């Protein structure tokens, strides 16, 4: 069974909303990294806005619903990147098994 990892970058503090929206669309968990973002053009003094990077591993069939749910829940454009997963373990309770 094909799986994907979604990487969603949102302003600091918005990760909880992303997880709620993803769970409504069928996601079963998420991991949040606190990151900082590079500004489009570096200034003489460095200001780097903090961002939450939300990682969600899901089945490919649910990917579109999750992306639409997240995008629909925010007014501003949300950056979502999708990484194909080679193999996984620990998702049996998500209805996924190794080498599905």
């Amino acid at each position, binding site marked *: 069974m094909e*799986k*994907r*990892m979604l*990487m969603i*970058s949102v302003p600091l503090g918005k*990760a*909880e909303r992303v*997880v*709620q929206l993803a769970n409504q669309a069928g996601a*079963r*968990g*998420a*991991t*949040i*990294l*606190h*990151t*900082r*973002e*590079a500004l*489009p*053009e*570096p200034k003489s003094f*460095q200001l*780097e806005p903090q*961002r939450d*990077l*939300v*990682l969600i*591993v899901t089945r490919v069939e649910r990917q579109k619903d999750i992306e639409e749910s997240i995008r629909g829940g925010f007014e501003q454009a949300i*950056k979502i*990147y*999708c*990484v*194909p*997963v*080679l*193999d*996984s*373990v*620990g*998702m*049996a*309770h998500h209805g996924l098994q*190794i080498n599905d």
Partner: protein
Amino acid sequence: MNKEQKPMTTKKPADILLASVVTRGKGSQLMNLLKHEGASYAVCTFAEGTIPSHILNMLGIAKTKKELVFAFIDQSIEAQCYQILAKEMKLDHPGHGVAFSIPLCSHPNHQDETDLAATFIIVDEGKGEDVLDVLDELGLRGGTLINAFGGASMTDILFDMPIQPEKEVIFMVAPKEPLIDMLGVLDDKLDLSQPHQGIAVTFAISRAIGLYSEGKKGK
């Protein structure tokens, strides 16, 4: 033409995730260089390197402070980004860090793979050392440790305060075969197939720099 005079490149849609582990303090510089080269997006987080050294272990400083940069780039600028990583970050020399490309779903040939793979192992805080011990037994060394937060049970509320469980993410690059075998061993030793014990996922890699094995230059 120097860096100040070079015009900002027009951003192209990303189809490669360029993940770089560099010395703490160099993450912002690398993000700026990659953005200047045309990366569509870049973020950076603190991490810890775990390359084992008997001397450092005895001194209790086995972990080294690192930064992990995720840059989303177009494949047309991949070669230039690797030149920056070699020239500015010295990743072509041992001990300066590692970087690798993971093709995104939007990559036209994301099935093109090397014999290397990357893994993300996400476990509860405190279990990261157990994972590193299991990997060490399998001969897999040199992972990067990142502190993270779980999102599965974020709705738990205690005294009006949301509870956000702390997690540890172990990030590692290794040959594909032992890494796939490692998933089964981790499942046996850490019961990952039970709910809320953690997950491990692997990704194909299309290019890498800075991988060294026992002091010898790798791929």
